[in-house]
């Protein structure tokens, strides 16, 4: 094992880089990178410093904020990683036991008796055991790490593992390319030709023999079918000598291998299916751990949450981009919000009462007073108690949300939706207005009236997820209700008010179960029919649970945006996030071309409106002119109108109407034919620029005199 492990690990360390590079390509092209974001951050910081009179304090503060960001983000990141790892652990265990089972089924021949030549012995079993790992997501980005971790987990259990990516199976490099990258995981990189007999002789070596060889291909859909099938045929010819077990990631459906591989290669596979958690499940787990349970104290506002949800559902659908969006939000929060460093303080305080906390509080109150001086509206507020109150409310809120989620689990409510709704300040306002009337009534007394109230509320807020959940709790069968109460009990340990009530309910339920067990089913059936009379008389546990839930929502679930000091921990600027994340580069190009003066801020072109002026940049003139055409632009016409505009300038230039320093040198070219050539050159350059930005397309063979406009509208 010793020589192999070192070589394998070295091989492994190289693979993540390559995959990373492989992906980086698409990140840079399509998505807002974090680099872009950090530049935004820098700019904003400069803005801030302009308002700050005290330079030293400012640098102090920004430093603190930076530290706080590091602290908070590392917390969030590690939480997310743990969550995902735990989600996969189960599947990984399955796969591991399957690998060893199938290895035992192969029972490779002792290799040295097979001689140096690659003949296949007489076994009918040349089938390759193949695990098809369904990732359940069309986008593949989320699962790169998963496959690496799978490799590591198998490696730690004694298998020889090679992680291959789909780029290894390209038609360009062919079968030798993928064999080379396979061998690179096991052998020293010095072999000259990737030949299976090398692999066999490696496997027969001491330390290598007797363990399964697992080949993981992370995304089989993107592999070249011909190469992959050659690879499979070759491995199956050797499987008697080298017990290779394949694991292939399938992003879409189980039909994918059928679509890619020819039947003779399919014949060699002996597949077994494994399924990773679906993106929605993973998303819920991440949201629960990172945002609802508040591992870091950082929170997002309602609008941001809705944006993140919609972005996940409609646009991208990957956890990776969700996490990235979260990070961007975090960065923006810490760069724009002056008091955000208190979040770091909160975290530190939570961990241990540090010595520096005093200092930080002092600085914080100083800053606060400074802010107050500037705004001159608030009377003095104690910041430390305010913050502790904030965290208390937050805890209550998250407890209630988790309780609701627990209630919604049986009918597959998505935490993400629930989270968005629970954050909505409007919901809370409407609830609060209701609760004002219901205040002091508690939740067990005067049931009938309360019940009517509940009905009213429900009809009033019909369609809301939370209300649906409350309704469902009423119809819950006893066993499920018992389960629900148990989980509530665990969740509300810290919140005494709710905890006591839950216990009370539990005892009632137990009592009922003891006394009239046979009736229970009937009662619940009656309840589902829900004639108001009967419910009024039987103060059932379900009803009480529903009312408890309603009370929890009303009294304890205060969205963060309704609490004082929420600005410190809560990011709400959805526009910034959107522009950072989506970017919409094509639109920006068009906007910049049409409204270039906003960027250039020259005096000459400001008044133009829609009329192209000669002092404008050539590309802008061209694009403004192109607006007048349909999807085909006649090159000659275009050139003529371009020329008129430019020449108009030249004439004007001789009249010395306008002189931009940029164009001065053009004035010197007075001679006509020279300028004609010059204009043509400018025309060509501008049109090439438009082509490169993807706004026009070069003439086709059919219509040589026309270019085609590609992008329309903004």
């Amino acid at each position, binding site marked *: 094992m010793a020589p192999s492990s070192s070589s394998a690990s070295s091989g492994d360390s190289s693979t993540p880089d390559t995959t990373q590079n492989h992906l980086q390509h698409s990140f840079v092209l*399509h998505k807002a990178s974090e680099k872009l974001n950090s530049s935004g951050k820098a700019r904003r910081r400069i803005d801030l410093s302009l308002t700050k009179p005290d330079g030293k304090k400012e640098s102090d503060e920004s430093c603190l904020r930076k530290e706080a960001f590091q602290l908070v983000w590392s917390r969030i990141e590690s939480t997310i990683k743990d969550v995902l790892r735990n989600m996969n652990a189960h599947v990984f265990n399955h796969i591991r036991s399957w690998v060893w089972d199938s290895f035992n089924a192969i029972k490779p021949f002792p290799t040295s008796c097979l001689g140096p030549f690659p003949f296949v012995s*007489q076994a009918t079993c040349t089938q390759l055991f193949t695990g098809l790992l369904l990732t359940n997501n069309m*986008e593949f980005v989320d699962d790169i790490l998963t496959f690496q971790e799978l490799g590591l987990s198998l490696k730690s259990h004694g298998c020889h593992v090679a992680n291959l990516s789909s780029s290894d199976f390209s038609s360009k490099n062919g079968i030798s390319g993928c064999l080379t990258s396979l061998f690179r995981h096991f052998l020293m990189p010095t072999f000259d030709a990737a030949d299976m007999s090398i692999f066999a002789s490696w496997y027969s070596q001491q330390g290598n023999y007797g363990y399964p060889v697992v080949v993981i291909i992370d995304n089989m859909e993107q592999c070249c079918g011909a190469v992959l099938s050659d690879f499979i045929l070759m491995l199956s010819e050797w499987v008697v000598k080298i017990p290779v077990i394949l694991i292939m990631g399938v992003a*879409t459906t189980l039909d994918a291998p059928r679509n890619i591989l020819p039947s003779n290669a399919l014949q060699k596979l002996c597949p077994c299916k494994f399924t990773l958690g679906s993106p929605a499940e993973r998303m819920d787990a991440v949201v629960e751990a990172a945002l609802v349970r508040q591992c870091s104290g950082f929170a997002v506002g309602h609008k941001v949450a809705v944006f993140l949800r919609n972005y996940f559902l*409609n*646009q991208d659908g990957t956890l990776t981009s969700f996490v990235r969006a979260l990070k961007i939000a975090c960065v923006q929060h810490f760069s724009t919000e002056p008091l955000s460093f208190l979040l770091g303080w909160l975290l530190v305080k939570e961990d241990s009462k540090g010595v520096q906390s005093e200092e930080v509080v002092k600085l914080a109150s100083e800053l606060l007073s400074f802010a107050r001086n500037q705004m001159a509206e608030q009377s003095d507020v104690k910041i430390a108690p305010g913050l502790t109150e904030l965290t208390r409310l937050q805890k209550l809120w998250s407890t209630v949300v988790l309780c609701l989620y627990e209630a919604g689990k049986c009918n597959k409510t998505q935490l993400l939706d629930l989270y968005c709704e629970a954050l909505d300040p409007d919901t809370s306002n409407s609830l609060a207005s209701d609760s004002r009337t219901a205040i002091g009534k508690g939740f067990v007394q005067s049931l009938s009236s309360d019940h009517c109230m509940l009905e009213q509320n429900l009809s009033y807020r019909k369609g809301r997820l939370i209300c649906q959940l409350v309704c469902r709790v009423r119809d819950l069968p006893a066993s499920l209700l018992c389960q629900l109460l148990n989980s509530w009990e665990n969740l509300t340990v810290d919140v005494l008010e709710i905890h006591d009530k839950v216990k009370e309910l539990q005892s009632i339920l137990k009592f009922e179960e003891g006394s009239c067990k046979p009736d229970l089913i009937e009662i619940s059936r009656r309840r589902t029919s829900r004639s108001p009379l009967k419910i009024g008389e039987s103060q059932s546990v379900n009803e009480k649970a529903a009312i408890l839930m309603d009370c929890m929502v009303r009294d304890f679930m205060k969205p963060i945006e309704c609490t004082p000091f929420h600005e410190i921990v809560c990011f709400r600027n959805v526009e910034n996030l959107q522009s950072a994340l989506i970017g919409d580069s094509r639109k920006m190009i068009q906007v910049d071309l049409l409204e270039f003066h906003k960027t250039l801020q020259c005096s000459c072109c400001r008044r133009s409106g829609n009329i192209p002026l000669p002092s404008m940049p050539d590309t802008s003139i061209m694009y403004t002119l192109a607006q007048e055409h349909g999807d085909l632009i006649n090159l000659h016409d275009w050139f003529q109108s371009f020329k008129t505009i430019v020449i108009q300038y030249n004439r004007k230039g001789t009249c010395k109407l306008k002189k931009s320093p940029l164009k001065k040198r053009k004035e010197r070219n007075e001679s006509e034919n020279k300028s004609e050539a010059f204009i043509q050159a400018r025309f060509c350059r501008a049109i090439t620029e438009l082509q490169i930005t993807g706004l026009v397309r070069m003439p086709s063979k059919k219509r040589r005199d026309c270019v085609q406009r590609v992008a329309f509208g903004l």
Partner: protein
Amino acid sequence: MVKEESPQITRRTTRSSALAKCPNNVVEETNASSQPPPTLDDLVLGEEGESFSFDDLVSSFPGRQSQIKELVNLLGPQNSPMLPIFMYGGTSTGKTSILLQTFRHLKRPFVYSSCLTCYNPRILFESILNQLILHRKNAENGYSSAKRCERPSDFVNFVREALVSIIGKLQGQKSGKLSSKRSGKANGNMIYLIFDNLERVRGWDKGSTVLPLLLNLYDTLKMPELGLIFVSNTSPDTYDSNMGYVESNPIYFPDYTDDDLGQILMRNQANKKLYTSFLSVVLRPFSRITRRVDELSTAFSLLFRKYCEPVTDLRVVPNEEMKRRLFSHFQPHIAPALNEVFKVSQPCTEVEARERKQKGRTRKSGGYDVVDQLDFHMSTSAKYLLISAFLASRNPATLDASLFDSTGGSNNRKRKRKVSEKSMEQKETAEQELLMKGPGTFPIERLLAIFQCITSVAEDPLDDEEQAQDGLGIQDGHGGLMSDVLLQLTSLCGANFVVKGGSCPLEGSTRYRSTVSEDMALQVARSIKFPLSKYLYRR
């Protein structure tokens, strides 16, 4: 490829021989670094002193007696020169297994190389040379070959050298027979080169250099001690044989008959009676579809398990009544399995498919439930894009205006109807043509236009519904759907739902084609409540 169908009896013997050898191997295992250098004996298959008679050979390959006889005759008695042999026949008809077992019977040294494993000329050449020179790649020599050989001319020189030396050794061994005990293993002083999967070579640089070299090797080397055997799954006519090669002796391996198949499949069964009754039900329908032993045996292994489900004791001897009962239980599984023969046998697929169907039937109107129905996650905009790609591939481009133009729809439709009345026949032939052509290609502009149309159409009803359903809605969702369409398109291409024709993207002449089945497209459309059938051009 060819050897799967080897007989079970021989397998058992080899297994046992392998087991018998095990203690040796364990020793070798522990000091693997000092493996004994390969000797001449390694070129011979089978154990020393093992007797594997001709009758054993024939009995282990049912229905192949004539081919075996012919092969042995062509190989001739010891030390007799022979013309090249060309064995051919369909996949899984026993070519390689019979050849190897025959050599095991004859105990003659041979060098085997499969052109599938040796996937390029260099590896093929070096693999042959390594075996001839008795060189073994291992960690000490850095997994390198004995000789570096890339060019065919080098190969000829090297192989001549190696052959001369090895034949010398064989002759020396024979004369010095008494000196060593092990020397008796190899019979005669002929050496045979076996090229398996020869059809693969045609793919290497269009078969222009290596294939003629191999087919002509006999003439080039002119060594009477050399025997050449080619194994291919296509007939010799498919190789340019009018190039002046020495005519090789062909041996044809026809497909097995039903009886042969029955005998082959029966061999390793524990309960022969039960399996016979199973085969009587299954073999006839299946043998119409495929006669490949490997395909049949994998298909049957699953089916037999199903067949045996009602049987408690697997050693039972079935009577007529029981057979009938088993058959009635088993019958519904046959027809679906027939279609499954060409597909990958997955234990979970059927359950999966059934689940999917049920899900499809009882589809819910909730926001997420419908997504689950698809089995995998796709973002909404990717779904719309997939549908628009499907429409663009499916509908003729001329219909786009009438389908998607909401304002001018009516008069367009009128015009269309007139046209269709005029030239019904013409249209019909055009339709047939469309059907034959499969999904059409489309430029990206058309895709984007359709995408924009269907998202704008879908926006209004969807928003109402969503807002009524849960207060969140997708307010800013659809407005932004366009923003990274190109990214979505790339990921659709990555998932093989849309195929991209290769050309320069700057020129813009790239055309796409959607490869999604209609079922899948309908499923996707259902999950976003898009009325796809309204937009489909029905023929």
